[in-house]
């Protein structure tokens, strides 16, 4: 247990020291979302219509940008190899690293979400739905994203390949999340969508750590 806590603390401390780098996905998130009113016009009805979709797509893209950090620095200085050779369970260590990553790269996006909901004229029920989908759905981005990052950690042209691999896989999440917010906008229930996202989250929570560990072993032979 203490080994895992140590890994968590280390990752959080390292992330804190690289605050500038962490700002980048956040800035990207805000920038991309800001492009849409500029592109489609400031009419509140239009923005409200496309709002949930825009925020979710931007969240997915920003998370892709931040995912590369997950194993890159550890790979470059050799601590990834050390981690894999140590007696700590690799799936557990992977899960802890994913947690640290979610806390430092994705949680800030969620913290920013009220501002962006304001930019896009989302109504209050819509915002609450958005928040719930973000909280329940973004861990999925980290968990499944980490599998692909684990596979591509040694490659130098990882970036776009990561997007190519992960975007199709994130499509169901996108569909259900935006549908939930859309239902909220029409004052309808959205428990079903949240339930499905929750199910996907639990499924990946259970299996992804093992897939991530396997991916790391494959790429680090």
């Amino acid at each position, binding site marked *: 247990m203490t080994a895992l806590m140590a890994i968590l603390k280390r990752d959080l401390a390292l992330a804190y020291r690289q605050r500038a780098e962490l700002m980048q996905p956040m800035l990207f998130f805000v920038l991309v979302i800001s492009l849409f009113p500029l592109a489609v016009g400031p009419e509140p009805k239009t923005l409200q219509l496309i709002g949930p979709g825009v925020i979710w797509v931007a969240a997915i893209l920003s998370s892709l940008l931040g995912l590369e950090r997950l194993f890159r620095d550890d790979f470059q200085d050799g601590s990834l190899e050390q981690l894999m050779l140590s007696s700590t369970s690799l799936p557990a260590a992977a899960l802890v690293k994913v947690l640290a990553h979610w806390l430092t790269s994705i949680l800030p996006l969620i913290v920013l979400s009220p501002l962006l909901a304001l930019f896009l004229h989302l109504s209050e029920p819509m915002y609450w739905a958005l928040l719930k989908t973000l909280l329940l759905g973004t861990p999925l981005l980290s968990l*499944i994203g980490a*599998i*692909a990052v684990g*596979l*591509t950690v040694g*490659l130098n*042209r990882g970036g776009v*390949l990561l997007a*190519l*691999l992960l*975007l*199709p*896989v994130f*499509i*169901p999440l996108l*569909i*259900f999340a935006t*549908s939930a917010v859309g239902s909220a906008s029409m004052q309808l229930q959205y428990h079903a969508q949240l339930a499905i996202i929750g199910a*996907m989250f639990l499924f990946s929570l259970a299996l992804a750590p093992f*897939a991530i560990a*396997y*991916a790391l072993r*494959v*790429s680090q*032979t």
Partner: protein
Amino acid sequence: MWKWLHPYAKTERTYHLCQRLLPWFSLLGLAVIILATVWGLAFAPTDYQQSEAYRIIYVHVPSAVLSKSLYSAMAIAAFIGLVWQVKTSFMAMIALAPIGATVTFVSLITGAAWGKPMWGTWWEWDARLTSQLILLFLFLGVISLYKAFEDKQQAGKAAGVMAIVGVINLPIIHYSVQWWNTLHQGATLMKLGKPSMPPEMLWPLLLSILGWALVSGAIFLLRMQNEILQRDIRRPWVVALANKSLALNKGK
């Protein structure tokens, strides 16, 4: 029970098996596909709703059916390779991928060409076309990941993991896209449901599916051989094989 499969973990045995099967798959496949196409184009009755445009079904449905079967086959090959560490299984997986991508692409083009007369637009975000588009992305992702690695062993395993992540996602994607489509589109479904198809239209369709499957099989056998040759290019059996084919050609 599976002992008879064990020799095929060796590349040389598999190469020769592919060689023996190749003439059957290619000739039979070509014959069946030509027969089915001619039957479907010229002899199947005219549809009273869609007139002659429905004949596109004879290329659209086989390519769509094959796109899904090839992805499943690729995922099964990936699974076998990952679980039992069989190299030839990874080769089979990567040999299947471009074929799957091509038939998926064909299903999209033929779907669009069918959509224009039927819906009035080249592209429609209906459940089927959208799922096929995502399937194409999955195929291309597996291929790109494989090509990104220098070491082909690593490449096979990495692409295998992604193929399996994709196959787990396939039913989720299909379901979510269908659900999304009913939310947004309503009833823009094609009117030709399979059970209500008369036998004169159904038989050429089944035959085309078979023909496409055989032709894909033939192309798979070729590509499998290419993978094996690339991997084993310096081995004596390959050199002997090349010399033998040279002698055969000279004899001609």
